[in-house]
Every structure is written in C-alpha cells, then in structure tokens.
C-alpha cells in the first residue's frame, strides 16, 4: 500500500536536493542569498554556486540552506559560466521575489535595516491603522445591535 500524503509526493516531500535546485542560504557570510545546487557531495553537503547573486562556488551543508521551489536545467557539476547562463535565463531571483516566501523575505530584510526614527514611524502607522479598523468595527457593531 502506497500512502500518498496530501500536498506531498509518495515520500511526503515536494522539494528535493538535486542538481539545479535553487536554494536560499540561511547561515554564514552569504546569509539571505540565493544559489543553485551544481553537484551533490554526500548526505550532508552539496556544491552550491550563485554567480548572479554573489555566492562563490562552494561546498555547503544542507543545514545551512533552504530548498526553494524552482529547479534550473544544468548538467551535473556544471561550471560557473554554465550556471550563470542557466540562472539568468531562468530568472531565479525574480521568480523567488514573486513568491510569498520571497515577499516575506524581502520584508524581513527591510525591517532589519529600519532606523530608530523609521521604527517610530512604523509604530505610529500601526496605531493609526488599528484605530481606523477599530472605528469601523465599532460602527458596524452599533448598526448590528439596532
């Protein structure tokens, strides 16, 4: 009996470590950057390359990367030039930026760079938004009570 999980494959996973898988680097000097898996070393590490995003060709362990949805067509062990050409034509950065994950990622980056005054302005904006929502809600509540 083969159990097929909802939203997953036979194994219950959707994204696999494979040549061409686009990854997000979650730890280290290249934190937050996108790269492509050029080759797989073993069960712990793979060779990753991101010529269009500033990631040097390097071995990286899976604990430091997050797999994204996109897979790029490259031969196993493709050199940096080939990865660059494939990444450019597949538009890996734009594709990621268009996803919900990509938008949240971009927002988090923006929040980290907010200055003290920006944070104050943000607080004021949130208070104002909450005030407007509350005002409307109270109005509707009053109407419903009638």
């Amino acid at each position, binding site marked *: 009996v083969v159990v097929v999980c909802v939203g997953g494959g036979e194994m219950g996973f959707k994204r696999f470590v494979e040549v061409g898988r686009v990854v997000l680097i979650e730890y280290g000097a290249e934190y937050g950057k996108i790269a492509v898996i050029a080759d797989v070393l073993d069960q712990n590490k793979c060779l990753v390359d991101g010529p269009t995003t500033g990631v040097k060709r390097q071995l990286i362990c899976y604990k430091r990367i997050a797999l994204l949805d996109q897979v790029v067509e490259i031969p196993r062990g493709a050199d940096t030039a080939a990865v660059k050409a494939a990444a450019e034509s597949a538009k890996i950065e734009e594709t990621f930026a268009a996803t919900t994950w990509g938008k949240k990622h971009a927002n988090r980056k923006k929040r980290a760079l907010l*200055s*003290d*005054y920006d944070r104050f302005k943000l607080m004021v904006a949130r208070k104002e938004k909450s005030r407007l929502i509350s005002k409307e809600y109270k109005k509707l509540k009053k109407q419903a009570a009638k």
Partner: protein
Amino acid sequence: MVQVEKPVGGEKNGGKRMVTRPKEAKYYPGEDVAVKRTALVHKAPKLRGSLTPGTVVILLASRFRGRRVVFLKQLDSGTLLVTGPYAINGVPMRRVDARYVIATKTKIDVSAVDVAKFDDAYFKKAAAKKSAGGKKSEEAFFEAEGTEKPKKTLPDSFKADQKAVDASLVKALKSDPLLKCYLKAKFSLTKGQAPHEMVF
C-alpha cells in the same frame, strides 16, 4: 642617512665605493643634557563618525535616560553638548559623555544654532561654600536639620540661553510634527530586540 665614500680592497673592485651611513652630529655636549619633552596638549578626542552636530541621539544614562535629544557640539573636555530641546522633551542643555549615547541616523539642521559661547566652564557647578568651622560637628548637623535649606533656583541667564539655543530647533520641528513626537517619545527595548543587531 648620507652617502660616504669608503676605500675597498682587491684590484678588481674599483678601489672605492659609496656607502650609506647615518649622518654624524656636528656637536656633542660635554655633559648629559636632559631631553626636553614637548608639553602634552589636551585635545578633545575624535568622535565616532556617526556623531555629527544635529544628530538625534539616545541618552543611555543619567536622569534623562531613554530620551531622544539633539547633539549640538563637542566641548573641549570631550563631552557632548546636547539639548532636548527643552520645550519639547524637558531635557535642558547638558553635557553628556559620548560613550553613554547611541547616535541615530536622524539628523536635524543646527546651522542656525549659535553654541560658540558654551564651554565646560559654563556648565561647571559653582563650588559649594564650606562651613565656617570647617569640621562637621554634631550640634551643627542637628541644627541644620531643623532649618529650611535655601531653594536653588536657576538664574534667568541660563533660561534665556536655553531659549535662544532652542529657538531655531523648535521652529524647524513645528513644521515636522512626526519628528517632534519622535523627540518627545522615550526609547526602550521590547522583547526580541537586541541593540547589537539593530540599526539606529
């Protein structure tokens, strides 16, 4: 270092050669003379790049900790001269150590503010008059406990100076109400915030 001609042996070596040697002094004193040191000149230490006049700054210590104030200039002692402005957040013109301050990225135009006359002597507390006896006696101590201490009031000149310095700042902030609210608000850390990870 000078070039000195030195004779060189061996028939095929040209007979002489130019050699670099340290220059010899023309005069050596007969007795040992103490070397005179140049007097140490005290200069205010160079401030970190984020602290420029007009920067909004967060005070980390003292009675006004957490307050956002405007940095005006560095005094000769190395301390910073800051002002609330007083009309906005109640912080008067004050000296503050540069190390007890976080500089934010927000800058206000202070070119119209004249702070030339303010220096360390202006802020130094007037030396308290010592009692006539010199020594503290038990009777004098208990006597003093009963009497009312004279109230220390700030001389009007200080208030006038404060107003003069704050005038242009308050005017500029009138046109930017959000910035005015920002200076009124106190800074504090909330859960999850780490100052070493934050941009100010």
